[in-house]
Structure formats: structure tokens, C-alpha cells
């Protein structure tokens, strides 16, 4: 608010405006919550990458050590087949992060391309695309994802596709909105007047300026996709054993809720912490980047 009084309404419009990244980083670093989020995310990424190297085989069964409570030998205990829960959570981190990040990336690539084109050209392309988007949005996310996963069959790839497709309409809407707004700005009309090609305008002028909105959308979408993956896996529509996923671990933990509650605890905490990390990161980035704040 105070910022506003001092610097408000002093926008230079002569060149393509871009956020100054150093400043962005500095502002980001001053937010302890955002930094916590970054640490959590980086932590889980490292955990996912290093876990398989450092920890025991997540699929190694040990019938002599079934349903053991956490101990030094098994930090988070063992599951119903005597497998090390810690190693399985590390393995699950990989699945979760892959599903979260890849589905969101896929959704962004498809959604931004379509959104920019429809927002830029408008006309009948826009009408048709928006009808399709409306229809897709008419389906509650989980029903859509469950249906798609059931049609495609259960596998990690299909979960990623199902989650990505479910996210696309939202991305299209955002990209379209940004394209329509930025298109009207002076530096774009200038470029149009200079005879720049449509593709150049869309991807050199409009896209970079909408980047803030896209990054914010990504940080909202990734944790949602991570939870989505866990949910689909929990329903048996996600990755399949022996591959482990946090959702699957929770499915089998449900059977042992009374006997071995820790089986339900740790994978859930892992999901929550990862999602929390991305949400914190997202909140931080939104504060730093969100164009809405300066509007």
C-alpha cells in the first residue's frame, strides 16, 4: 500500500516491460514463508532423486519384518509386506513430483498455446474453443479425472495425461485473458504497427508478459495435481504396484488403521508437506510476481 503512494502510476511504456529478476529474487528472499516453501520443494526433489541411491530397495519384501513400528533399522517402520516405508516414501516422492510437475507442464504448454491463439485472434476460433472449455469445465475435476483415468487405464502416464487434460481449460482461460489484455497495450500495438508477425507477437511479446500469471497458475496447479495423483492412486486408478505412490500406500494403510496407524501417517504427511511447499512457494511468487498486485 505504501509502495503505491510513492511509485504509483509511473509506468514506462516505451519498451517491453519485464519484471526485474534480481529485484524479484531479493523480494522473494525476504519472505520467510516463501523460502520455507522453496526449501520444502527442493528438499523433496532431492529426496526423490537421492532416495533410490541411498536407501534400500523400496520393493524388497521381508516377511520376517512385517508391520514394524519405526526403528533405527527402518526409520518409518515397515509395511504389511515388510518393505521399508521410508524407502517407499522416497520412491513415492518421485511419482508425486513427476505427476505434479509433468501434468502441469503439459497443461501449461497446451493451454498457453491454445489460449494465446484464441485470445489473439478471437473470432470463431475463440468461440469454438471457449465452448469446448465450458464443456470441460462443466465436469467437476475429479469426475473428469476419474473418468479419463478409467478410460485410459491405470498407469503413471495416463494419470499425468488425465491430470493435464483436466487442467487445460483453466490454463486456456488464463492465457486467453492475458492475451486479450496485453494485446491492447501500447508496446504490442507498436509492434503490430511495425509489422511484426503474429507468432512473434504472441510468443515474443505477449507470452513473456503473461509469464507472471502462468508461473502463479503453475504453483497453484502443481500441488493440486499432486493431491490429484494421490487421490487417483488411492482410488486404484493411479500408478500400479509394485511401483509405490503415496496414494497407494494410503490405500493399503487403510486396512491397518487400527494396528499400524503410522502407515497412514507418514505418506499423508509427505503429501501434505510437498503440497504445502508448493503452496508456500506459490504464495511467495504470487506476492512477488502477480501482475494483479500492481494493477
Amino acid at each position, binding site marked *: 500500500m505504501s509502495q503505491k503512494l510513492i511509485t504509483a502510476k509511473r509506468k514506462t511504456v516505451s519498451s517491453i516491460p519485464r519484471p526485474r529478476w534480481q529485484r524479484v529474487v531479493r523480494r522473494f528472499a525476504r519472505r520467510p514463508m516463501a523460502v520455507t516453501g522453496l526449501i520444502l520443494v527442493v528438499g523433496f526433489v532431492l529426496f526423490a532423486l537421492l532416495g533410490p541411491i541411498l536407501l534400500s530397495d523400496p520393493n524388497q519384501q521381508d516377511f520376517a519384518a512385517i508391520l514394524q513400528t519405526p526403528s533405527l533399522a527402518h526409520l518409518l517402520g515397515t509395511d504389511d509386506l515388510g518393505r521399508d516405508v521410508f524407502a517407499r516414501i522416497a520412491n513415492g516422492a518421485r511419482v508425486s513430483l513427476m505427476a505434479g510437475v509433468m501434468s502441469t507442464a503439459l497443461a501449461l504448454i497446451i493451454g498457453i498455446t491454445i489460449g494465446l491463439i484464441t485470445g489473439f485472434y478471437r473470432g470463431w476460433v475463440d468461440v469454438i474453443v471457449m465452448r469446448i472449455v465450458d464443456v470441460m469445465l462443466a465436469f467437476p475435476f475429479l469426475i473428469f479425472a476419474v473418468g479419463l483415468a478409467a478410460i485410459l487405464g491405470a498407469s503413471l502416464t495416463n494419470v499425468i495425461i488425465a491430470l493435464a487434460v483436466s487442467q487445460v481449460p483453466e490454463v486456456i482461460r488464463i492465457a486467453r485473458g492475458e492475451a486479450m489484455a496485453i494485446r491492447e497495450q501500447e508496446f504490442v500495438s507498436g509492434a503490430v504497427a511495425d509489422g511484426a508477425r503474429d507468432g512473434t507477437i504472441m510468443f515474443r511479446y505477449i507470452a513473456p508478459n503473461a509469464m507472471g500469471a502462468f508461473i502463479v497458475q503453475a504453483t497453484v496447479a502443481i500441488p493440486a495435481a499432486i493431491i490429484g495423483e494421490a487421490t487417483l492412486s488411492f482410488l486404484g486408478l493411479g500408478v500400479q*504396484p*509394485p511401483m509405490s505412490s503415496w496414494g497407494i500406500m494410503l490405500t493399503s494403510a487403510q486396512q491397518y488403521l487400527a494396528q499400524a496407524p503410522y502407515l497412514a501417517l507418514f505418506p499423508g504427511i509427505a503429501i501434505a508437506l510437498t503440497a504445502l511447499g508448493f503452496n508456500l512457494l506459490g504464495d511467495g511468487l504470487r506476492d512477488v510476481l502477480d501482475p494483479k498486485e500492481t494493477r
Partner: protein
Amino acid sequence: MLRRTLNIGCIAAASLMLVSCASTPSASPSADEVVAGGIAVVALSDEPDTLDPTVANTFVARVVFTAFCEKLYDSNDSLELVPQLAASLPVTSADGLTVDIALREGILFNDGTPFNADAVKITLDRNLTLDTSSRKKELAALQSVEVVDENNIRLTLSRPFSPLGAQLADRAGAIMSPTALETLGLDFGTDPVCVGPFDFTDRVPGSEINFTKSDYYYDKDLVKLDGVTYKFITDPNIRAANLRSSDINVAERLNASDVDQLDADGVDVLDVSAIGYQGLTINTDPTMSSSPLASSVELRKAFELSIDRDALNTVVFAGQTTPDCVPLPKQMAFRPDDIQCTDFDSDAARALVEASGETLPIPVELLIPARPTDQKTAEVIQQMANDVGFDVTIKPVEFVSALDLGRAGDFDMFLIGWSGRMDPDGDMNDLLTTGGTNNYSQMADSEVDFLISEAASVTETDARQDLYGQALDRIDEIKPLIYLYHDTWFLGLADITGVEYSADAIPRFKTAELTK
């Protein structure tokens, strides 16, 4: 190889099981006070399909039928035939082509209309002719039904078929009220009327089916309850929890892992070794399956040797199933007495695998229905088989699709069970015979075909038992199927006594009473 030598351990284990299996009419250990009337709430593990005996297919529907829809025959603890609506056991002619059945007299359907030979004929004809009848195949040998008089019918068969009695002890023998059939036709299942201790009241889809005590039932003096409500609760943990809180009186198919805790909480738990089996069906047609298992008996044997059935039982089922290597349940009278299974021997298995000359590890794609227990079983088998040189990949597919794939022969190995029948014919014919609809393994062996069809036409029990023994030996040589175990089912009882839970694992509430 199935050796016919006596093994003390195995038999001892089996007889121990039998002791617990055969615990028929439920003991009521606590001296609880009996309450007059009341409605027993029973939790089923799944929602039954339509309550029309001609088309019904689910196991849970069979459970519900016992409340309101009696059959010509029923089975006892050894899965032997006993009369229910029939007055006596069927009388088969010397050539085996005519079967006479005497009916009980003076019995009324739950709508008050009389039960008689005409009604039986109408039901059986419907079973034979309705397009969507699932009973057609079961009654394939039945050519025609003839009303001899008010209380006698004569069945004419196209070939001698001794399992007929067993079929009439199942849904095919459940007699429907002709009046109700007339009114409802195809929709009989929406308001079914038969002979039974209870009468259908209503059904709340997805939730429950309600029955009230019948006024017309012949044994109505024995019926103490005012009614029975069957609720559908798919999650076994929740069935157990509701039992503990006395929200329900009976819960079917509880988790083995919950049993001890339930006992401690004062819930009575009865168990029965279910008549069905679980097994690994191997595709034996090399044109359909690319796995070396398809063409090599030795490798199939190696696979069996790699599996520690007892460990599987301990780890996945808390020691509560009955490991076995034949399809016939232990309580079945026709089961050969001297079955010896191939024991777990990983060294022998590894030796066989290495001797096969195939490139190791040997790939096997294991098709499984995507259900938690199946997945866990598959994971354990995967580890065991991989230990000796196989490379098992698990392919979980949603149940119905898995059946599709199984039928199409699109698999290397398929983890699939069979719910079991009262008569051994139902556990082997069509499942192991050439061209059978459920012969997923694609096995085609004329000796097996002959033995199974011969056993069905012979009436004498010892002779049948012997023929099935020979068939099982031959099947063991070919190994189209690695039988794993028979499930043990647990029935939890809270504040109820007098529940019958016998060898067919179907709880009956005719004589049940609520307690305080």
C-alpha cells in the same frame, strides 16, 4: 507332480481346519438373554445384483436368497444334497435320463399362493428359456419338465448328469411364485416372491434390502426374528467397526486381521473355509502368450515350486486361508483323500529354470484384477518367482476388463479365482475342459475332457471321487493352473444367536434370535 502319499502334516492341518469349518449352527457361548422379535441387520460385502434367481449372478445375491427364496434342495456340512422344498432326494432312473422329484405338500408362497408341481415347472421352464437366463448353462442337460401330479415332477435329461441335484440346490432350484412372475415378468427381481422365512419388503439401491417375517412360511414357528435387513458395506474394516459398535448384528467376510481384535471385543466370529479357490491361470497357448511358460510344463512346474503357499498365507492373509493345490474344497465329499501338493523348493525351481535353456530372467506378465488383496498377493508372488529367475511384471486391470482379457486369452498368467460350487463338476467342467467359456488357460486335453464328463454321468459317489482324482492328477501334470488357496471367510456376530453358517459360507437367519 501330485504324489498320492500320505503326509501327516498336511492332513493334520486340514483336519484342524475342518474342525473350525464345520462349526455349523452357531454356538452362543455367552449366556445372553434372548430377545423376542426384532430385526437383524446383516452387512454384506457387496451390493447384490437383481433378486431374480433366473438371472442373478453375484454371491451376495445367493446370501440374500436364503432369506426369502428356498430351493428344491440345500447342502449340508459336507456339501451333500438335502431336501428343502423337495420331499426327498431325487430319484434317478437306471439310464440316468429321468429324474423324479417329490415335492413337499401344503406349502405356500409368501404371497399366499400354493407351491406345487405347476409352480416348479414354470420356474424351471423360465430358467431354461429366458434369453438372459444365467441358469441355462447350469441346466444344459435338462431337456424337459413334466408335471406328474400336484406334488410330483419328472425331469427328462438329454444325458446322464449327476450334478443336476446340486444345481437344484442353488439358484436354478429356487422356485418363484407364478403369480408374481405373471405380474412382474422381467422385473420379478424388483419385488420377488418365493417360499421363505422372510418376505421381501423393499430395496434401497446402494444401501439396503429389507425383509419381514413371512406369514405363510411352513416353518414360521421356528422363525423368531421380525425381519432381516441386509446392508451393503463394501469395506471390511467398516463392517468390523459397525459390528463392534453393535450398529449391525452380522457382518459377512471380515478381514482375517480384524478377527483377534473382534474376539477381544466380545464379538463372536465364525469361520468357514470357502468352497471357492484362488489360483494362477497360465496361458498354455503359445500363439497367444509369448512367455516361455506357455509351452513349457517344466517352467510352469518351476513357477509352482517357487511359490511358498504357507508364506503367502501368513503374509497376505494372516494365516487365515487354507493353502491348497486343487480346486475342490477340503470339506467336499468328492475330494480325493490323498492329495499331496508340490512343496515350495526354490533351489529345485531355480534348477529347472536354468535347465530350460531360456534367456534369464524369464518374462511373465501377471494379469490381476486391480483389487487390493489381489495386488498384494501378486506382489508377493512376484518377489518369490523373481527369486528363482523369472521376471514377473504385474498388470493390474479393473476387474471386468481383466475378465475380458482373460476370456480373450490376452495374458501370460492370470491371478483369478472361482467362487466354487457344491458339486465338483461346477469347479472343473468348463474351467478345464476344451473350449470351455471359462477355460482361460486354453487347455485342451482329451483325457481331462473325458474324465470330467464321465464323472458327471456316474451317480455313485466313490466312482465319481475316483474319476475326479484321476482328472486332478492329469491336470497337475499339465499345470494350466497353479491353485493357491481356499479363502477362509469370517462371519461376525453381535447380539445374535442361532445363525446357521455352514460349508457353503452362506449365513442363514431362519432360526436366528437377537440377544441383549
